[in-house]
C-alpha cells in the first residue's frame, strides 16, 4: 500500500499560503483604505484578522497533512484500490478489465513540484461526473503507472474475452494527428469574425431601438439625427474593435496554450491524446470503450466549412470534479470534409454515413414555438397596455413600449425561423447494419456516429396532428456521459420508428 507523493502537501501549503495572503490583503484594503472605513478602528481590528487568517492557514495545512497521511493506493493482481478524503472518505476498488479511461493532468505548479494527478474511470453512469480513482504521485511514477495499468487492463480483457476485436487494430505506436499552428490561426480568425459579426448585429439592434425611442419620446439629449448616428456608429465600431482584439487574444491563448502540442497517438488497442502547455493532459482509453463520435459545427464553423470532432468515452477528461477542459475533444479544429478522412485514420469504425432520411416538413419546426411564443407575448403585451393605461401612462410612452416589445418579438421570431430552416435542412438519420449516424441541430450542427449496441432506448415524440400526417421526432438515448446521452432528430417519417426500434439490442 502506497501513499500519495509528499509534493501534494508542499504544493497545497504554498497555494493555501498565497490564498490566505490575498484574503488578508483584501480584508486590510477594505478595513483601512475603503472610502467609508474608519482607519483607527481598522488598525485595531487588523491583528485579530491576521490571527484568524493564520489560524485558517494552520487548519488548512493540518487538513492537507491528514489527507496525505490517510491517502493510499494499492495494485493487486486483479484490481486497483484507492482511498482518499478527510471529512468524506472515499474508498474505491476497480477491476483492471473495467477501466474505461486513464487521464494524467499536470499543470505548471505540479511541474515545479514534480508531481502529476492520475485519474482512472470505470465508465459507470452513476459516477460519470467525477473520476472514480485519483492518485497524486511523482510525474515519472504516474507515467509508469499508466503503462502498467494499460498492460494489466489489456491482459484482464483478454482473460475475460471482453475485447470485441480478435486482432489488434493498431500494431505500432504511431502519431495519427497533429493540431498545426496554421489550423490554430484559422480557429482564431473564425472566432474574430464571429465576435465582430455578433457585436455589429447587437450594435445595429441597439441603435435601432434607441432610434425608435428617440423619435417616439422626442429625446432631445441625444442631439440631432446626424449627431446621434455618428456617435452611435463610432461606439459600435470601437466595441467591435475592442471585442475583436480580446477575442483574438483569447483564441490564441486557448488554441496555442490550451492545445499546445496536441497529439493523438495509437498503441495496440489504446488511443492516447495529449495536449496543453501550462496544464498538460494525457488521456488514454481503449478503442472499444468509445461510445459515440460527434462532429460538431457552430454557426461560424458551418459558414466557413470547419468542424470540431468530439468523443464520447465515459471518463475521458473527467477530472477531480473540476471540468475546465472541453469534454472529450478528439480533433479541436478541422475542415468538415476532412472529418471523414481523419476518422478513417483514427477511428475507422466511426466514418459518418450519408443521410438516408430527411425532415419531411418545415412547418412543424416552427408551429408550436410560434403558437406558444406569439400567444404568450400577445397576452403579456395586452395586459401591459391595459395596466399602463390604468396607471395613466401617456399614450406616446405606451406606443414606444409596444414598438420595442414588438421589435423583440419580431427579432426572436426571425432567429427561430432561420434556426428552423437550418434544422429542416440538417436533421436526418442513416442506419446500416450495426452503425447509426444522426444529423441534428439548427444553428449548430452535430453529426453523431455510434454503434447500435450503444443505443439504450428509443423515444418517439409526436402531436395529434403530426400523428395524422405520419410525422414523428426521435430522441435516441445512448450509453454515454449523463450530460450528452440524448440525440434528438426532428420531424421524420414515423415508419422509421420501427426500423430504429429494431436496432435496439433486446
Amino acid at each position: 500500500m502506497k501513499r500519495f507523493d509528499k509534493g501534494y502537501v508542499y504544493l497545497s501549503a504554498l497555494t493555501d499560503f498565497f490564498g490566505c495572503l490575498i484574503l488578508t490583503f483584501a480584508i486590510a484594503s477594505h478595513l483601512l483604505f475603503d472610502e467609508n472605513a474608519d482607519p483607527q478602528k481598522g488598525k485595531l481590528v487588523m491583528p485579530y484578522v491576521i490571527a484568524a487568517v493564520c489560524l485558517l492557514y494552520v487548519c488548512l495545512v493540518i487538513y492537507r497533512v491528514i489527507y496525505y497521511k490517510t491517502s493510499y493506493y494499492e495494485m493487486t493482481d486483479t484490481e486497483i484500490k484507492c482511498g482518499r478524503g478527510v471529512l468524506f472518505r472515499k474508498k474505491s476498488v476497480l477491476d483492471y478489465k473495467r477501466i474505461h479511461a486513464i487521464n494524467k493532468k499536470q499543470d505548471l505548479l505540479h511541474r515545479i513540484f514534480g508531481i502529476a494527478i492520475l485519474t482512472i474511470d470505470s465508465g459507470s453512469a452513476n459516477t460519470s461526473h467525477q473520476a472514480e480513482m485519483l492518485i497524486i504521485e511523482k510525474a515519472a511514477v504516474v507515467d509508469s503507472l499508466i503503462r502498467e495499468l494499460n498492460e494489466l487492463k489489456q491482459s484482464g480483457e483478454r482473460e475475460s474475452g471482453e475485447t470485441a476485436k480478435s486482432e489488434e487494430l493498431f500494431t505500432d505506436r504511431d502519431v495519427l494527428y497533429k493540431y498545426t499552428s496554421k489550423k490554430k490561426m484559422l480557429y482564431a480568425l473564425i472566432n474574430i469574425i464571429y465576435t465582430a459579426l455578433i457585436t455589429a448585429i447587437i450594435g445595429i439592434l441597439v441603435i435601432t431601438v434607441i432610434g425608435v425611442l428617440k423619435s417616439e419620446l422626442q429625446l432631445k439629449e441625444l442631439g440631432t439625427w446626424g449627431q446621434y448616428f455618428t456617435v452611435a456608429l463610432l461606439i459600435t465600431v470601437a466595441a467591435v474593435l475592442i471585442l475583436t482584439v480580446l477575442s483574438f487574444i483569447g483564441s490564441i491563448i486557448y488554441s496555442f496554450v490550451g492545445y499546445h502540442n496536441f497529439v493523438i497517438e495509437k498503441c495496440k488497442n489504446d488511443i492516447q491524446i495529449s495536449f496543453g502547455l501550462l496544464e498538460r493532459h494525457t488521456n488514454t482509453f481503449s478503442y472499444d470503450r468509445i461510445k459515440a463520435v460527434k462532429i460538431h459545427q457552430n454557426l461560424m464553423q458551418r459558414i466557413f466549412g470547419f468542424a470540431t470532432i468530439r468523443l464520447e468515452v465515459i471518463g475521458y477528461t473527467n477530472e477531480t470534479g473540476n471540468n475546465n477542459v472541453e469534454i472529450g475533444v478528439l480533433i479541436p479544429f478541422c475542415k468538415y470534409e476532412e472529418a471523414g478522412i481523419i476518422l478513417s485514420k483514427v477511428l475507422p469504425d466511426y466514418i459518418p454515413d450519408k443521410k438516408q432520411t430527411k425532415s419531411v416538413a418545415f412547418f412543424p419546426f416552427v408551429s408550436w414555438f410560434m403558437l406558444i411564443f406569439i400567444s404568450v407575448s400577445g397576452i403579456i403585451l395586452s395586459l401591459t397596455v391595459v395596466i399602463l393605461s390604468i396607471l395613466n401612462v401617456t399614450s406616446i410612452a405606451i406606443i414606444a413600449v409596444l414598438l420595442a416589445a414588438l421589435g423583440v418579438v419580431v427579432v426572436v421570431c426571425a432567429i427561430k425561423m432561420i434556426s428552423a430552416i437550418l434544422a429542416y435542412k440538417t436533421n436526418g438519420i442513416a442506419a446500416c447494419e450495426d452503425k447509426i449516424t444522426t444529423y441534428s441541430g439548427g444553428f449548430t450542427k452535430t453529426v453523431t456516429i455510434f454503434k447500435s449496441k450503444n443505443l439504450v432506448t428509443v423515444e418517439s415524440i409526436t402531436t395529434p396532428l403530426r400523428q395524422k400526417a405520419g410525422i414523428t421526432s426521435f430522441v435516441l438515448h445512448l450509453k454515454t456521459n449523463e450530460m450528452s446521452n440524448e440525440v434528438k432528430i426532428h420531424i421524420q417519417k414515423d415508419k422509421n420508428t420501427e426500423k430504429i426500434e429494431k436496432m435496439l439490442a433486446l
Partner: protein
Amino acid sequence: MELKKLDKSVLKMWYIQAVIISLIVILAAAGTIVSVAISNAPGNILTAVSLGCGVPCIILLCFILIMPALRYKMYAWGCDDTRIIVKQGVIFRERVVIPVCQIQDLHRKQGPLMMMFKLSDVTISTAGSNFDISTLTTAEADRLIEELEQKLEARIEAQKNEKI
C-alpha cells in the same frame, strides 16, 4: 403488446396535487393584492395589480385543473419479456421503448401523498438515462420490479448462451 392504464386512485392523487398547487397560486396572488390594498395605494394601482396578478392566475389555474384528467387519459404502459413501453403526454405524445436487458437499477419512490394513496413511482435506470413509470399502486410497483428482475436475469442468461 397490450398497454395498461393507470389505477383510478392515481387520478384522485393528481387532482389533490393540483388543488394544493392551485391554493398556493391563489394565496400568492391574493396576498399580493391584499398587501397593495393595505398599503393605501391609489385605486388605479390596486386595479392594475389585481389585473396583473388575476389574469395570469386564472390562466394558470385552468391549466393546473385540466391537466390531471388529460394526463391520466393519455398515460399507458406495458412490458413483455424483452421490452417496456411507456406512452405519455397530452400535446406532445411520447412513446419510450426500454429494452429489459439495458436495465441497470430499479427504484421505487413514494412521497407523502403517494403513501396516503398507497402509490409508488418506479424509476428504471439504464446505462444512458433514467425513465419513470408514474404512478402505480405500491403492490403493482413491487410486482413489476420483481418481474423485471426475473426477466432481466433470464435475458442476461439467454444472451450468454447466444454468445457461446
